[in-house]
């Protein structure tokens, strides 16, 4: 079994799986049980300033979308930061950290955008002995209206300013948690970097309305006939998070800035993908909220199994390995030609590839009287749609047309030489190939 010990910002944890700041980490009781279940670390549920805590709604606070067999695919919430007194949380954090010195304990904080507020809370947090802090600039609902959360996270100047305050009044690592509710994730990441953040974590939840109650004509979850947008998370948001992580990992201005990836991590594979995409570790919320703390056990066994298979002895071995292969569209090789191939042995003759290609793509799949489906090489543009809609995994594959052979669709010989859009004759601003 591979050793999953991971060091992130100098904070060691027995594995790279941390619980994200959310209900699973809202109190001592939960966090102790999470550690017993095997989680490597937690980011404590976001603390607010001293004084009367925020209040949550007393009606439903979650909405969801489901796939087959009511598998939860996306969760949406309108919960706020912790609704328990600051002192209670601080005392609990202190006790837990003392009892679990080998686990990471990070404290998430959201206080008003005033230097004094941060100056007040940071020494108290420091006194808990926790390993670091995470600045919640992400919460998209409730707190944003009060000038916190994503209201700060959407303004790079504020991010930089608050980060700088934190670095001034707090000695341990500062992680800036980013909101995905922006146009270009690189700007807030750059601002965090400029403010000397030790790391960024992302994504927080995405603004969303999951569904509309068609009897009451109100968004779900409905509270007294009304609803509001909430934050979306869970498996459905993973592709969005993955792209944002990749953007920061490959941005020349933020390259090398440690990333704690969040968003839809459900199995070991999701975690491995985020880490290959540059994340030093991952944080999980919805998977734990759906299945309980025990899910981490599959993440642990799956990741170490895969590392053993690949011969990786440390998570460090593969972190960031996929980053160099993320590029811009214009640099993709236009001379790389593939064709779809249908394995007749695996095909179950459902005809979905045919319907998809015939109705919505390139009319490149032929269907015979006796339901044999074949690809017409002279029409196939290799779009991959058939591969994606085929219910049999591995039945349709994309086969590369080797250099020297003719692409029957274009009638041209495949050159085998790399050539991209920047040099393509159809590109008005093409630069001549050397």
């Amino acid at each position, binding site marked *: 079994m591979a050793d999953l010990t991971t060091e992130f910002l100098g904070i060691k944890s027995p594995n790279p799986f941390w619980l994200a700041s959310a209900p699973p980490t809202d109190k001592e009781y939960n966090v102790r049980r999470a550690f017993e279940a095997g989680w490597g670390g937690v980011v404590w549920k976001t603390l607010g300033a001293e004084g009367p805590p925020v209040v949550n709604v007393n009606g439903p606070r979650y909405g969801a979308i489901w796939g*087959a*067999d*009511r598998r939860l695919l996306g969760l949406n919430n309108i919960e706020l930061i912790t609704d328990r007194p600051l002192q209670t949380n601080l005392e609990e954090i202190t006790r837990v950290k003392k009892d679990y010195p080998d686990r990471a304990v990070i404290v998430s904080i959201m206080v008003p955008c005033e230097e004094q507020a941060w100056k007040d809370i940071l020494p108290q947090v420091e006194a808990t002995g926790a390993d670091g802090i995470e600045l919640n600039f992400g919460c998209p609902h409730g707190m944003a209206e009060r000038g916190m959360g994503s209201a700060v996270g959407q303004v790079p100047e504020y991010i930089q300013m608050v980060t700088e305050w934190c670095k001034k009044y707090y000695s341990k690592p500062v992680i800036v948690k980013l909101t995905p509710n922006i146009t270009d994730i690189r700007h807030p990441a750059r601002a965090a970097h400029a403010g000397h953040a030790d790391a960024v974590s992302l994504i927080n939840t995405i603004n969303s309305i999951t569904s509309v109650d068609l009897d009451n004509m109100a968004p779900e979850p409905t509270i007294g006939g009304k609803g509001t947008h909430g934050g979306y998370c869970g498996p459905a948001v993973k592709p969005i998070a993955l792209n944002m992580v990749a953007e920061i990992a490959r941005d020349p201005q933020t390259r090398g800035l440690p990333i704690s990836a969040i968003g839809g991590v459900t199995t070991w594979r999701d975690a491995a993908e985020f880490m290959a995409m540059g994340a030093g570790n991952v944080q999980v919320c919805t998977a734990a909220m759906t299945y309980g703390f025990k899910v981490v056990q599959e993440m642990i066994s799956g990741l170490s199994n895969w590392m053993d298979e690949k011969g990786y002895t440390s998570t460090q071995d593969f972190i960031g390995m996929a980053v160099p292969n993320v590029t811009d569209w214009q640099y993709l090789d236009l001379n790389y030609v593939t064709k779809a191939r249908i394995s007749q042995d695996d095909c*179950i*003759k*459902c*005809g*979905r590839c*045919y*319907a998809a290609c015939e109705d919505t793509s390139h009319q490149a799949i032929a*269907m015979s009287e006796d*339901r044999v489906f074949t690809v017409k090489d002279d029409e196939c543009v290799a779009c991959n749609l058939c591969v994606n809609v085929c*219910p*049999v995994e591995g039945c349709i594959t994309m086969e590369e047309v080797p250099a020297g052979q003719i692409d029957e669709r274009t009638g041209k010989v495949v050159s085998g030489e790399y050539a991209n859009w920047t040099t393509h004759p159809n590109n008005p601003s093409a630069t001549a190939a050397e």
Partner: protein
Amino acid sequence: MATSHQASGIQAARLDAAGIAENFSDLHPPFDAHEAAVAADRCYFCFDAPCMTACPTSIDIPQFIREIQAGHPESAAKTILDQNILGGMCARVCPTETLCEEACVREAAEGKPVEIGRLQRYATDRVMEKNEHPFARAEATGKRIAVVGAGPAGLAAAHRLAMLGHDVQVFDAREKPGGLNEFGIAAYKATDDFAQREVDWLLQIGGITMQYGQKLGAQISLDELKEQFDAVFLSIGLAGVNTLRTEGEDLKGVRDAVDFIADLRQADDLTTLPVGRNVVVIGGGMTAVDAAVQSKLLGAENVTIAYRRSREEMGASRFEQDLAASKGVKLMFNVMPVAIHGEGAVSEIELEYTEVSGGKVTGTGERFRLVADQVFKAIGQTLQGQPDAIALEGGKIKVDANGRTSVAGVWAGGDCASGGEDLTVTAVAEGRDAAMDIHSSLMG
């Protein structure tokens, strides 16, 4: 006090009421909403779906399953009933393993087809539960049509004709409608008086008058019907049965399986229905299986099906065979009856092993006897009571692709007509299609 399994002779009450209730409960219990959602999610929504081609009534299966999946089973039911007005019964009795589910691509892929039959039941039950009838009659045409036989073929034809605006009069020799849905189908396939409930629901279309105790050839004649109606549809099923022509066939305790099943279906209390301790059923079709299984479920100790050909040639599907075996019925292949023995009543049946070559069955000479206090004959039903004027083909009323018989103005469909398998769903398809042809020939 229940009579035990071991009590000899033909006895009632071998099981108590609870045992009977358990044995005769739904063979395929209905899906609840979640099960239906999960089952529906398995459908791939195939293009030009093979399951649909395999359905004799060509129900748009991917469409109705998608309607279930999207949460409107009522539209799913409409999709089903548009093609097959007895979609509720067919959902219960179709041998799906040889029809739609056999053709389902997931059967090919993993040996586990989408459960089309149970999904069909889920959808149709929703509509029947609400007692909604999602069809209305077209403007009256003034045409009058006689339907003889109120089985699935007759009912399907009558409904379609009524819907198209014709006035329909249905005649049946029995005192109840439904045909074999009511008198033949195994009890555990159509529980809770489903056959009658379905007929009541079907008749809500209006424009259909039912007349019972009217037998063609007795109370009514084809000539009269032809005179009084604009068209006649014959759907009289197969009212006769084949005989064994074996020594001892007349002994007490030897009976036609279809009569036993009809008694069973009509019994108000199955604990009062007598059955033997040692039952032997001769035959290899669905009737043989149903008689055997239901004997066992009534509490018979030993039940044997004796079929003269091999397992592969058996008319009952592999699913039906396995069902029988799972209930404890013994299946014997390549054996034929040569004599039935007994003093006044049957006590033994003598069988001979057979060989089949070139389709012909011959005895090997090796014989043995089985203890039997009841023997059911299930060796096929035959056409009976058809008008003389009508041409036959292969022992059935000869019809063309549109159900037209040799006599002008007379159509036929279902088991009594040539072509197609003898199944409920085929009868429905033929009744419906003949109705469409009657309509177009009457309306020009």
